[in-house]
């Protein structure tokens, strides 16, 4: 088996979670690499939507921004941004929304707005972009994140987007009818919400990862499922597809690094 990095494993695990019938909203900071690997392997008819208005896009290289020209050139159709948010996202037509996080808590609540107080921030982050409504309008939410204590925290500084609140049926109590975060894929493990408490629980660890490694890079006390599986390693096809995609991307963007998956 070829060697692979933790980031590659994370991307490929996310790709596997996507199906042929999914309609994915690939927002800023989201793993467009995962979506495109899925499209180029087991889910050729998956629908990828970028919030720039491109619907059913099939780029040959990963976009540097969500509005790169190739997204439009390869799309089934390109609509205005207000229509994207009104008819397609708010209209409930997206099955999977991807979100990244600067801070994430155990219930899938996300902060990408500020570190510290909102009005006098220690660090001003870019903000939510589409996230507040992606989090509540998509059928379910997949989160990808590299584990670190500063990003997986006990308490986030700002609710940029809502996950499961304090768990249990907090989400339904707010009148939200979508499922919210159903999957967290990190560079170390795959997490799913506990059916009752909604706390993210480790259900699978990537090859060579220990429980201690997961806990050391997480700011809350990690809950493990009764049976923690080992994530199947990337196949040759998956790895080759991802690496070719990234090589084409690097070549197309003038040797610059693809950051959409950062």
């Amino acid at each position: 088996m070829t060697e692979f990095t933790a980031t590659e494993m994370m991307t490929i695990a996310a790709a596997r979670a996507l199906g042929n019938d999914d309609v994915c909203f690939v927002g800023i900071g989201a793993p467009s690499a995962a979506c495109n690997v899925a499209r180029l392997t087991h889910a050729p008819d998956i629908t990828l939507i970028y919030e720039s208005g491109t619907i059913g896009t099939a780029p040959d290289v990963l976009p540097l921004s969500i509005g790169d020209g190739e997204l439009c050139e390869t799309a089934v159709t390109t609509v205005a941004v207000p229509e994207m948010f009104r008819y397609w996202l708010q209209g409930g037509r997206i099955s999977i929304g991807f979100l990244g996080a600067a801070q994430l808590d155990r219930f899938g609540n996300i902060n990408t707005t500020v570190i510290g107080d909102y009005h006098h921030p220690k660090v001003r982050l870019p903000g939510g972009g589409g996230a507040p409504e992606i989090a509540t309008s998509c059928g379910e939410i997949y989160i990808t994140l590299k584990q670190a204590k500063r990003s997986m925290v006990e308490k986030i500084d700002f609710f940029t987007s809502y996950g499961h609140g304090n768990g249990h049926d907090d989400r339904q109590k707010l009148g939200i009818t979508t499922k919210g975060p159903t999957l967290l894929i990190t560079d170390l493990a795959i997490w799913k919400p506990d059916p009752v408490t909604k706390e993210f629980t480790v259900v699978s660890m990537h090859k060579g990862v220990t429980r201690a490694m997961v806990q050391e890079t997480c700011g809350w006390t990690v809950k493990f499922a009764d049976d923690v599986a080992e994530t199947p390693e990337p196949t040759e096809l998956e790895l080759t597809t991802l690496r070719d995609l990234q090589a084409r991307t690097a070549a197309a963007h003038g040797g610059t690094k693809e950051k959409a998956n950062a």
Partner: protein
Amino acid sequence: MTQFLSLSDAVRQNLKDGDTVAFEGFTHLIPVAAAHEAIRQGIKDLTLLRMTPDIVYDQMIGMGLARKVIFSYAGNPGVGLLRRMRDAIENEYPRAIETVEHSHSAMAQAYEAGAAGLPVAVFRGYKGADLPKVNPEIKSITCPFTGEELAAVPAHRPDVTFIHAQKANRKGDVLIEGIIGVQKEAALAARRVVVTVEEIVPDFKGLHPNLTILPNWTIDAIAVVPGGAHPSYTHGYYERDNATYLEWDKISADRELFAQWMKENVLEAGPEVFAERVKGLRA
């Protein structure tokens, strides 16, 4: 009715100190040349309105033109943070700015409501999010039929909107194509509209009837600025200059370097430099 003007005259006649202004473009077709002209003219105390402020607002904020920014994502797309904007928020450099923060959905629908002549955008949003706690302009409305509480934000009604487009015809109708973003809504929501275009063509004969066109009577001024969206791109004309976006991360990280770059590339330059900048990027 639209006038064909130089960029300098188009900006001078339409943008005033204290205006609320939108320079819109969603990654594609960002009106960079127009923003640079505003910087050269030293327009003051602007309220800048934009979904993704991007590097043009980073430049305008860094040069002290803005007193307020209304936005939903303050990032350099695909690269990271907007460092001049951060410096203004965190350190009040070069001046303090007020921020009014929304989600993309709210911003897009607020433009839509502005174009539709409504005072308010009503949508399903912000559920469980903290922004309504820090932005008093986010309110709610109860649906009189279902009882559902919906979000409400004021419609955007900028004093002036600047956009960049592929082409105008001789009558001054303007064509926008590719990723069309919120430009039509931002233009129709504004009191005054200025458009920079790559070129003027005799007419739009043979174009598809359903393309996005702003009729000449919705536009106040058109200025021809080839390359005017660089380092953003113009579909069908030139590609996005990704290297420049990455480079901006370094330039904007340092106040001195920023000032020097602005002096050389904006203050002492003119709209004619844009054609040169896109030469190597033509499709």
